[in-house]
């Protein structure tokens, strides 16, 4: 085994059954899994939607700063948000936000020790997907009614 370059490698040092030292692998990366089974797909989506939401917060910051700046800055935000690109972005963000929220509830249940049976994870996964679709449609119904 080569000399350690990083202190974290200490936690990767292990032994084979014959006692010879071995360097255990890092946590497996995306391509290790079948990415399109529900368990890994929803897990990966949880992280992606969280990162997408971080980008979405930029829109909230822009919206608040524009409202504080005055009517002309606010008009620019309104123009962007009601453009095709803006609407598409907002629709994607709303779906990502609802998914991350509902999947987060699923994670909280896991943290509390519930729902670890494989059939439970598939069932709650389907609930999250259905819930995301329903909540996103409801959000846009409210938006369209408010807009009209």
């Amino acid at each position, binding site marked *: 085994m080569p000399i350690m370059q990083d202190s974290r490698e200490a936690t990767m*040092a292990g032994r084979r059954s014959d006692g010879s030292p071995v360097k255990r692998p890092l946590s497996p990366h995306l391509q290790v899994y079948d990415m399109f089974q529900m368990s890994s797909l929803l897990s990966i989506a949880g992280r992606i939607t*969280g990162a997408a939401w971080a980008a979405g917060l930029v829109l909230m910051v822009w919206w608040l700063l524009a409202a504080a700046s005055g009517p002309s800055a606010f008009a620019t935000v309104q123009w962007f948000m009601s453009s095709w690109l803006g609407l598409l972005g907002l629709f994607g963000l*709303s779906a990502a936000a609802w998914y991350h*929220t509902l999947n*987060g509830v699923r994670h*909280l249940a896991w*943290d509390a020790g519930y729902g670890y049976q494989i059939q439970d994870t598939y069932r709650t996964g389907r609930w999250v997907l259905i819930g995301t679709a329903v909540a996103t449609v409801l*959000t*846009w119904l409210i938006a369209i009614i408010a807009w009209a």
Partner: protein
Amino acid sequence: MSNDYANNTTMRSPLGRVRGLGSAKGGTHHWWMQRVSSMALLPLTIWFALSAASLAGASYETTVAWIARPWNALLLLVTIGISFQHTASGLQVIIEDYANQEWLKMGAILAIKAICVLAALASALAVLRIAV
């Protein structure tokens, strides 16, 4: 059953291996704060998403009046603070998982924290300027 470590080809014990990593006093704090902030964000996010949807196409005057209402301003400030805290900790975990260079990891985490603090303060100041 012989001691598993009797056959070790080195003299390093498991304790020796982890020595030098520093104490683990704060090991669960980051994880726990992610859970706490996610629980706080659950009602706040539902409130904000439905409020933002109902403000679709609203005029400048309507929007500013909505932000200026005391309860809305208060909940906006809380939502801004916890959202950016939760975002910074979430992005930090992504960086820690995938960045394999120490300088890149540290630099990216510091940059994310700086951006999140600046964005949170800017948003909070905007709300206060409208509401106060």
